[in-house]
């Protein structure tokens, strides 16, 4: 029996947590993701950059009350990758 390979970009705790979180919302700010994932600022920044470079999420930089504001949104490519990832792990679990 052959198993579908797991997307290495999503098969990482923090990146999977970020994408799973973004699946359930329209958009989320950096601090919200930070709080919900319990990650460190540095690590979260690195993983968000990786997801952005892969086209899985869109990151918007703006300002609010003179403070920088980073907002993340799941991209269509990210949603497709997430759905394939979930199908794959369900396949593993069903076997």
């Amino acid at each position: 029996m052959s198993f579908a390979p797991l997307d290495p970009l999503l098969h990482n705790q923090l990146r999977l947590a970020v994408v799973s979180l973004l699946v359930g919302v329209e958009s989320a700010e950096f601090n919200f993701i930070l709080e919900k994932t319990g990650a460190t600022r540095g690590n979260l920044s690195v993983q968000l950059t990786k997801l952005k470079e892969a086209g899985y999420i869109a990151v918007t930089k703006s300002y609010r009350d003179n403070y920088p504001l980073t907002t993340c949104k799941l991209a269509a490519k990210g949603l497709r990758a997430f759905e394939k990832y979930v199908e794959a792990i369900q396949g593993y679990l069903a076997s």
Partner: protein
Amino acid sequence: MEQSMTPAESLKLIERMIGQAKRSFSRMSFYFLLWGVLLIAAMIAAYLLRTHGSPGMQGIPWGVAGILGGVIGSIHGAREGRKEEVVNPMDRIVGWVWATFVITMIIMIVCSVKSGMDPGANITLLTGMPTFLTGQIMRFRPLILGGILFWVVGVGMHFTQDAALLVGLYCGAMVFGYIVPGILLKRKEDVLRTA
């Protein structure tokens, strides 16, 4: 964070994060408390005007409550909206449910007044719908029960002409349909924000 996960751990993580996203509603308790207090005050003021010789002015408290609630609610919503760290699609759905309610309520008030009918009982019945739906969407039982209470009281109001009883029924529905769920929701929101 590069440690490998088993498929079961992955699935668990996905479920946990989606659950976190689902629970990230905007704060809504303020609106239930605001409207609960304003509408109770309007009902009592309208009753006092009616029983103290100014029945023609009994619509004024409702108009004042509507304008006050609209202005305070809008200012609060604009302020809080700027602070929200997340946009949840459920917030939008709840917003549309209440917008639909307000439009229907205004049409009902205009039609009832034009037909010489008191819209109170039907509006109480109608209030059950958005309250119940908000409770279901947020999975918050006090609002679900509040919605059911509005339906029960709305039906009850159709079967009495006693002005004092009508005031009691309406205020009771507001206390247990808006204010008590609003207080409990505020506690829940505070706990979620500090968790």
